């Protein structure tokens, strides 16, 4: 039997995912020891997992390097790859929103609105395709909240969980784009070649979420 390979988005999400795996009886003992290993295995179920940067998970899964990936819906939307989206793990629940200073509410529908974001594709889809509004999108790589404060943009498109960071910076939610949470995605060919093993794991996970 070949190994079934999982790519997990690094960070809090991977910890919670591993807890779910433990619940369904798949443990990775070598992961608990502090080591520099990048790939962990479970010999009983012939499963390999590795951690990667969240935005790289769809790349590993689309190419077939990993059969299954566990990654946030935000990354799936932004990367827009050819994948099976099989299950909502309901972990890491948050929202993609438009936020800004209160006065930005008045110009929210203007067609010269400047939008700063780490997620240009999601922003484009929301403003152009759903709202049919022309906007100027500025791609940033971090600390997006800064953009409206220093005047780089009018609003931002970003993820919020509690909204505390926004409030601390004098910003507020202006519109919801979509709810987000962690998803199980699978490679198209693996869904054929390893169909039963993958669906068994999905069924078991469905029972514990």
């Amino acid at each position, binding site marked *: 039997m070949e190994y079934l390979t999982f790519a997990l988005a690094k960070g809090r999400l991977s910890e919670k995912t591993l807890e779910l795996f433990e619940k369904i009886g798949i443990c990775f003992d070598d992961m608990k020891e502090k080591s520099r290993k990048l790939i962990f295995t479970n010999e009983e179920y012939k499963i390999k997992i590795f951690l990667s940067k969240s935005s790289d998970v769809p790349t590993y899964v689309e190419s*077939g*390097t990993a059969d299954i990936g566990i990654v946030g819906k935000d990354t799936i939307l932004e990367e827009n790859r050819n994948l099976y989206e*099989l299950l909502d793990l309901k972990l890491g629940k948050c929202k993609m929103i438009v936020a800004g200073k209160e006065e930005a509410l008045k110009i929210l529908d203007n067609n010269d609105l400047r939008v700063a974001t780490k997620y240009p594709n999601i922003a484009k889809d929301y403003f152009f395709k759903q709202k049919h509004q022309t906007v100027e999108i500025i791609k940033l790589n971090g600390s997006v909240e800064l953009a409206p404060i220093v005047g780089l943009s009018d609003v931002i498109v970003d993820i919020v969980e509690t909204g505390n960071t926004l409030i601390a910076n004098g910003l507020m939610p202006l519109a919801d784009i979509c709810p987000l949470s962690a998803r199980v995605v699978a490679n198209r060919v693996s869904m054929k070649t390893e169909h039963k093993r993958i669906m068994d794991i999905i069924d078991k996970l469905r029972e514990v979420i």
Partner: protein
Amino acid sequence: MRNNSLHTPVGVRDLLPKESEIKSFVTKKIENVFKSYGFETVESPEFEFLEVFSDENKGSTDPKQMYKFIERDGSTLALRSDMTPPIARIAATVYGDTEDPIRLSYFGNTCRYYEEYQGRARQEYQAGIELIGVNSVEADAEVLVIAVNSLLETGLTDFNITIGQVEFFKGILEETNLSQDDKRTLYECVAQRDYVSVEKIIEEKNLPEDIKEIFINLPKMYGDFEILEYAQKITKNEVSKKSIQNLMELYKIIEYYGYEKYITFDLSMVSNLNYYTGIIFRGYTEGIGYHIVSGGRYDNLVGQYGKNKEAVGFSLKLSDIISLIIKKDIEIETKKITALICYKKEGMKSALLASKKFRETGLYIENGLLGDDLNKNIEYAKSKNMSHVLYFLDDENIKMAMLTGEAAGTILYIKNSDLTVNSEGDD
């Protein structure tokens, strides 16, 4: 200054001798398979009017994925992004009044602009067939059998062809009382394999339990013949039932050929392409994350060019298959250059005549272009793994150096009049 002349653009590359050799080997093999079923090869241009590929009812390639340029009269042209629409045009315009069925095959490159940094080639070498003018399960089966036959000919054995029927899901969708908009959204979610959204929509819309169950179980509608029996049991609408019946008959015919072990069914398969109207299939193999075969029935496409004809066909992604043959080191028969012929000035005429005679018998012979230094010529021949060097001293006297086998390293003196030309393959 940037020097763009030393590398190729992203997504395209040179084929070096080994790959090129495998490419022509694979091409020949597959051409023979196609011909053996009566298919004739046609060639369409490398570029055409954009609409041929982009029109929603014809090609459905996303215009963003096409290489476009402007013709001098102002019309927009695009590099060929899909092989089938041009063949449909040929079928409608050239073969409009010919007796059906029409069996056409093709070999050629398609170009698509994939986003950068995804590791995907933007030029793809494809081969395929279109069986035009007949809508029957026998025609569907013939095309599938040829797909299996072609893959086997290339030396691959661990591949699988997954078959679906677009009518199955359409039937189920019609059974619900959802609005056109909701149906469309559901269809798109299933086409994109976004089952999380499918579940959400189903929950929100309060569908009857039995239909709900079909939707929830869609990703599991995958497997051998039993999955068809299961689907037959749980569906009530006529359209879906008929589509399952069609797949069952198809399976029976494929069984006659003994190819059923290469076949599985996936009833959740629907296509983004608008043109598929019946069966739809994809072929996969271990080691490639994308499909290597795609095909199906498209009964409305040829009609877009003015002559209604039903059709079924497939394309093979030969570029990927060639890469896999190299990666897996699958043996292919290739012919090697056997000998180098070189000469002193006095022996030139006899040498060239001898090389001509050898070639006529089918041997591959190189002429020595390194002058009359025998050692230099031997070194070169060794570097190309040749078995012999023939060195013509004059019209009659020849030194023959053996480079391979037990006699490697020996040099024999022979006479031109003794030189017998063996038939191909023996040496």
